């Protein structure tokens, strides 16, 4: 356990600001994404989509498509290639959409795959796809948000849909709320929105002697492999998934999607490689979205602002094709502030829509938005400073479980970001500042995201030439995994960065978990450390066994790796280069693969310290301070300034960590101001199906964003002290923007996004003068 306080050797690269090791490949066009591969004899597949949301296909005329030049095959439910769709999730993979692909003539949602056309070229496949003629017997879609019955989902991340905590003697949380001197009761709406990574989904399937190589951008190599193996009825060892670079994912590449099976089965059927690249428009129908939420939040506080009761009741949309739960209350009100009485409830309702799935900060993003807006409303009601209100409600223990947090520095986030922002100069009253035609407002909100770990393996190989390789079946979604793995291995081995190379994105490498829940870095880096230490142990044994070595006779504990060799801790001048040890011993390379099992760490002391979710709560926090300008006549809102402080444990690389927060924050700016996947409540069709109508932020929408990391490394969580960083940036900022809009204009908008018409309505109501 002594290693906890002083990681050995002292990290030089971990925590520094380092340019990405894959940067050169990315700026020269050499990074290989799935669609960049091209194989001899490859054919192209294009999907044909349903244009109704519910009903049956009564006829599907494929004659013209089949006769179209270059067409190799047209697959429909009648001649589906051999697939055994695994509709039940197992621990080995995830599927969001639980419908057999090309299953039968039934239509469950708009944009469902009804046929796949395979042709010699993309142009030919696309043309022929347009010639497939379905005739439908349409039924009324279940498309009105208010229409379907509300129902309790199953477990939500292992918790019940209804959670309640009551102070002794309190009859109900509602009673406690009603008895509170200051009360807020408001309902917040967040719309369906879409991930839209810049790289569309893609797949290339290539069979050779009964074995499949499958190129696809995925967030879980082993998950995709296991899914394909099950769905194609082949052993998992006969499936290799490759995903060297993933062009953004944000959750929509986490589940395996059924089209992957169709592409692989078609390639098997045709005995040639088949390539499929999803059209941008189909990225809106086929690969998940964030559900719509309606969240009723009730907060009750005493006159000093101390929370007495919190109720957070969420309804989120789901699909007949998949029941993903956007657990807003659980992931926000369940973790943020101390309160003696808390009640959280979740209900879902099923629409005729494609299956939703997790999207960056699932639950937290809409949940923290609602809670943090309600907190601002409570501060207004109490005439309290919003930061002060939060400070009086800090808690050292998890609000629901009562477990102590491993490390929590939310108050420090407020202080650091608030000072940088200049919060102390904020006018208390709204509508106090105008610059020309623009109302100026300042708002703030807290951010929060849970810290997760899963089992992970990594392999480290040290070569006789003094270089090293580190590998595991994780991947880099833009998150910087290549870089932080290289940093970690280099630090452990005492090598400069350039001497270490990282390999990722191949399911034949040691197993790594799903890259989601911000868990990758925190899960795989401890395994990298262990593997590197195992390699060094072998090397130390070799060195100490050599009677002529300057290190002869020293115990492994007396040696350390530094500057490309081993040296005595007590006397650094006693040293031997790695190359010399290899030469003497005749070994060509030393290799070790190690596995971390967080759940077993209390028993297995090899990997310090012990991760213990049964006795400790792990959660990251942060604060956003935002300045907005709102045009007094048009209601246009511009985010002018963002300052954030994040308590995420150890930032592993200041450069890439900052980028992760920027990315999350800009996701939040999009959610706050522009992103809204319009869903037609009559037909069940998506209306926004391109990036011209679905507005993700562009450069001109994004101001400078000031990011500071606060708080110490969290060595109670793992041996690198890092709790994960990919999602927390997309929590809280939309509330901070809304709170700033209120401060600018006096208009409180309770439905995202904060588009001009919603603000303008309030502005004219308030008198726009």
């Amino acid at each position: 356990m002594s290693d906890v306080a002083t990681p050995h050797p002292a990290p030089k690269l971990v925590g520094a600001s380092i340019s990405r090791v894959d940067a050169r490949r990315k700026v020269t066009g050499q990074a290989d994404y799935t669609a960049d591969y091209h194989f001899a004899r490859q054919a192209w597949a294009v999907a044909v989509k349903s244009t109704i949301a519910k009903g049956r296909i009564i006829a599907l005329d494929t004659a013209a498509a089949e006769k179209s030049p270059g067409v190799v095959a047209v697959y429909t439910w009648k001649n589906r290639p051999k697939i055994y769709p695994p509709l039940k999730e197992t621990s080995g993979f995830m599927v969001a959409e639980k419908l057999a692909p090309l299953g039968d003539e039934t239509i469950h949602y708009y944009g469902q795959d009804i046929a796949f056309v395979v042709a010699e070229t993309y142009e030919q496949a696309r043309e022929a796809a347009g010639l497939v003629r379905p005739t439908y017997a349409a039924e009324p879609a279940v498309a009105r948000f208010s229409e379907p019955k509300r129902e309790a989902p199953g477990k939500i991340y292992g918790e019940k849909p209804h959670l309640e905590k009551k102070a002794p003697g309190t009859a109900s949380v509602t009673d406690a709320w009603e008895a509170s001197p200051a009360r807020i009761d408001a309902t917040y709406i967040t719309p369906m929105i879409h991930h839209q990574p810049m790289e569309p989904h893609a797949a290339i399937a290539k069979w050779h002697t009964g074995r499949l190589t499958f190129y696809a951008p995925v967030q879980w190599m082993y998950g995709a492999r296991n899914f394909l193996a099950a769905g194609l009825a082949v052993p998992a060892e006969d499936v290799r998934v490759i995903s060297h670079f993933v062009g953004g994912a944000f959750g929509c590449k986490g589940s395996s999607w059924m089209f992957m099976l169709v592409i692989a089965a078609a390639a098997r059927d045709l005995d040639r490689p088949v390539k499929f690249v999803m059209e941008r428009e189909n990225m809106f129908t086929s690969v998940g979205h964030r559900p719509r939420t309606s969240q009723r939040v009730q907060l009750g506080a005493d006159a000093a602002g101390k929370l007495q009761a919190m109720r957070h009741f969420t309804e989120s949309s789901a699909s007949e094709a998949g029941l993903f739960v956007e657990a807003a209350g659980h992931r926000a009100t369940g973790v943020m502030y101390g309160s003696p009485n808390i009640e959280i409830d979740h209900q879902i309702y099923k629409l005729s829509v494609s299956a939703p799935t997790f999207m960056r900060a699932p639950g937290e993003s809409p949940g923290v938005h609602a809670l943090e807006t309600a907190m601002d409303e409570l501060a207004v009601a109490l005439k309290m400073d919003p930061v002060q209100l939060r400070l009086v409600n800090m808690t050292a223990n998890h609000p629901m479980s009562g477990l102590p947090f491993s490390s929590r520095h939310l108050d420090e986030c407020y202080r650091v970001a608030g000072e940088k922002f200049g919060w102390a100069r904020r006018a208390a009253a709204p509508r106090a500042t105008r610059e020309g035609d623009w109302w100026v407002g300042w708002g703030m909100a807290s951010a929060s995201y849970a810290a997760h770990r899963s089992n992970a393996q990594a392999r480290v190989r040290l070569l006789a030439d003094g270089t090293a390789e580190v590998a595991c079946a994780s991947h880099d979604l833009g998150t910087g995994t290549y870089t932080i793995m290289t940093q970690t291995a280099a630090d452990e081995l005492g090598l400069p960065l350039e001497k270490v190379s990282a390999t990722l994105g191949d399911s034949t490498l040691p197993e790594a978990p799903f890259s989601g829940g911000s868990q990758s870095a925190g899960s795989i880096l401890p395994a990298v450390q262990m593997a590197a230490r195992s390699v060094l142990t072998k090397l130390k044994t070799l060195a100490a066994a050599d009677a002529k070595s300057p290190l002869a006779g020293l115990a492994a504990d007396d040696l350390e790796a530094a500057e490309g060799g081993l040296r005595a801790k007590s006397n650094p001048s006693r040293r031997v280069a790695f190359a010399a040890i290899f030469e003497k011993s005749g070994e060509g390379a030393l290799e070790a693969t190690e596995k971390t099992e967080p759940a077993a760490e209390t028993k297995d002391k090899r990997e310090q310290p012990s991760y213990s979710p049964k006795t400790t709560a792990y959660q990251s926090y942060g604060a956003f301070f935002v300045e907005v300008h709102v045009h007094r006549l048009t209601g246009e809102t511009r985010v002018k300034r963002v300052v954030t402080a994040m308590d995420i444990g150890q930032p592993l690389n200041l450069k890439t960590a900052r980028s992760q927060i920027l990315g999350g924050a800009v996701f939040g700016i999009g959610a706050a101001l522009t992103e809204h996947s319009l869903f037609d409540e009559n037909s069940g069709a998506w209306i926004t199906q391109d990036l011209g109508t679905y507005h993700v932020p562009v450069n001109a929408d994004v101001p400078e964003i000031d990011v500071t990391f606060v708080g110490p490394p969290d060595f109670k969580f793992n041996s690198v002290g890092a709790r994960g960083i990919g999602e927390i940036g997309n929590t809280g900022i939309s509330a901070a923007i809304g709170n700033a809009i209120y401060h600018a204009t006096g208009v409180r908008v309770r439905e995202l996004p904060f588009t001009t018409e919603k603000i303008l309505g309030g502005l004219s109501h308030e008198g726009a003068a």
Partner: protein
Amino acid sequence: MESSSPPSPEIGTDRRGFIRQASGVVAVAMLPHSLRARAESAPPAPAPSASGLIPIMLRVNGQDHVCEIEARTTLLDTLRDRLHLPGTKKGCDHGTCGACTVHVDGHRVLSCLTLAAMATGAEITTIEGLAAGEKLHPVQQAFVDCDGFQCGFCTPGQIMSAVACIREGHAHADDEIREWMSGNICRCAAYPNIVDAVKAARDRSA
């Protein structure tokens, strides 16, 4: 080549401009100057062969490539699938994301909205042709230094736009850079770092 006019509504030059005109019809009047000139003065295109393919020659990164394509094939698909230069990315295939940005005679152009047959005889530059051997172009180096990307998928397009943005004289002030780089979406949202990279490259090449 220098221009201080606001974003032009020409196809292939700018996402917002494209959205403004939004018809999606490729009319000669809307083509970038170089392509327009070619469309007006070029000899009639060779007749398609029996296979329906037309032979074309494209000059990409200083090298001539001869290939046979269907007349409807875009410059983007030709680069990626026929010439095996996959550095240029397809993000949307209809002019809304900028991932496919290349230079045609020095101008930034959306290759997904440009038919390959329209670019014959032009000097086409893609991300693969920007570095001088091992030495990165100053804009590439600035993107590395400033972490002007995360997943890297939009990056070839961002860099081609950034090179043009500086060359056009649209990189003086931060807000000007933001505006003139807004035709390239980065969902990872490296935007503040992209602005830094454009400034750093501008100052290095100045």
